[in-house]
């Protein structure tokens, strides 16, 4: 079980440093966008290929739109009580 304990302790240590990890992530985000600005696009097959950071913006806005859409579909259309089809946990 020592491998399990060791991994567990490692993860605990990382979780304790969540704030540091958050800053690292933000720095990484800035770096990948910055590289995109500095390095010219290798090809322009699509109109947006030349725009630096396009994928970043697209992913961020896309994620927000998707979350909104999921909530609307869930609460507006498809959510039902968990035993809608009869009891679900008939062990």
């Amino acid at each position, binding site marked *: 079980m020592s491998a399990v304990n060791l991994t567990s302790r490692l993860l605990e240590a990382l979780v304790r440093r969540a704030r540091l990890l958050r800053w690292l992530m933000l720095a990484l985000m800035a770096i990948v966008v910055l590289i995109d600005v500095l390095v010219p*696009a290798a090809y322009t097959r699509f109109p947006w290929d030349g725009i630096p950071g396009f994928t970043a913006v*697209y992913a961020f806005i896309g994620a927000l739109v998707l979350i909104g859409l999921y909530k609307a579909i869930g609460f507006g259309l498809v959510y039902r009580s968990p035993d809608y*089809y009869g009891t679900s946990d008939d062990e």
Partner: protein
Amino acid sequence: MSEWLHPALWLGLGALPLALLRGRLRQLWQLALPLLVLLMVANLETGTQVTVPLGPLELMPLRVDSLSLAFAWIFALILFLGNVFALRVDDPAQHVAAMLYGAAGIGTVLAGDLITLYVFWEIMMIASVWLIWRSRRQAAYHAGMRYLIVHALGGMLLLVGIIAYWQASGSITFDAVSTGHIAFWLILAGVLVNAAAPPLHAWLPDAYPEATVTGIVFLSAFTTKAAVYVLARGFPGEEMLVWLGVFMILYGVTYAFLVNDIRRLLAYHVMSQVGYMVAAVGLGSALAIAGAAAHAATNIINKSVLLMGAGAVLKMTGTSKLTELGGLYRSMPITFLLYMVGGLSISAFPLLSGFVSKTMILEAAAVEGRSAIFLLMTLAGVGTFMSTTLKLPYYTFLGPDSGLRPAEAPLNMRMAMGLTALVSLLIGVMPLTFQALMPFAVEYNPYTITHLLKETQLLLFTGLAFFLLVGLLGGKNKLSLDVDWFYRVAGQRLMIGVRDQVRALDQQARQRFMRRIQRLGTYTIELRQSRYALRSWSTGSMMLWTAVVLALLLVFGLGRA
């Protein structure tokens, strides 16, 4: 020589002893058999064709080319890894079913004619349902029944399509099916049932989460991917498939985000990932078809890691509901980390297998200038990352602590997850070796600076949006209706309605008939009581009736010679 080395045949036969073997011997055979099959697949030579005459037909049970081989080796590999995961399951029926299912899957992709294909196709269905039923719950039994019925209908469409194809073309060889004939649509519909393409998909998220902890790994590997193979062989470049595939990807990720059961979440995600393959088959270029095969292979690997992780959680905690889980990283840290490898890989994180295959499909769309397809697939990548790699692990392993402190998963389960994750990593760091196993020998380098930048931007900024709203995104203790509602509720209501109508009609008719009989009865009694029939008859009327009878005899010619 090689005709005797059909891997499906030996795998099918080798499955049978598992019904009798016990203990260590069973475990040994369970691991040795898939390895032997893997060896057989590795020894298959491209170009091999074995034909067997059957009456007027010429069957081709074995046809080896780069496309069939790509699917055969990954099927054999996952059969081995899945069996490592199932090593401690003491249920012979499951082991036999899994091996027969794998044999049928390999048989399907190696079949050179439509009849052999159909036979293996149906064996897949019959063997796989046992992996659902053996979880021995009432809900699993019902879900398995629905699974059987849907697949029986799909199989019927396929069979009728094959017969129509044979009638029209006089051949049963399985190659690209020509457009414009009814056979084309019938075969396509039958295959799309197994590919879980909407609206024919509901069997998958309905049945898979009811399967056993170990069975779902095999289920996610064979049926849908064998269907992808049939599409790639029979329907390459079919434009309709591009849009169907994209719709599938988005439909799958949407439901994956909505459902509460982690295995159902991953089942919807199977459907979503198969959408990439269907769309790639629709694009039809050599790069796209190779991408479809590559994505099938990496997806089998990645999805297995994820389903093994989710299965381990279910086994150790007894629940697979997001709303009941949380904070498991303390007690199941290795499962958590290995799950994350699968999750990151399926989200196309560089150095893992998903990156290699997914960028291949995106590249195929980009080369052809399909801007809408490209953007929608990228958007679906956002959805994939959010549901399988952020939401599921966050609310299962991190997030609000559920207080559950299960033991870490058994060693064989961790080994299986670890080995499968290792395969994913190897494919990720050695894309050229991997591509050599894929059809058409396309030259494609996933590790360009553009691909790396785009994928890392996509993942990081999706993560940013997710963590900004993370408080709102936990599982909801709800059931999400899908189109299976039409046969589970609407269909049932329709049947009950029709039954009631028929019953009412039947009762009315019986009552009316009974009333007539009763009226006739009363009339007869009245007639007898009135003695009208027994009254004395006058001579005149007797004469008249005798004359009438004689006249009738004359008219109808009685007494004539």
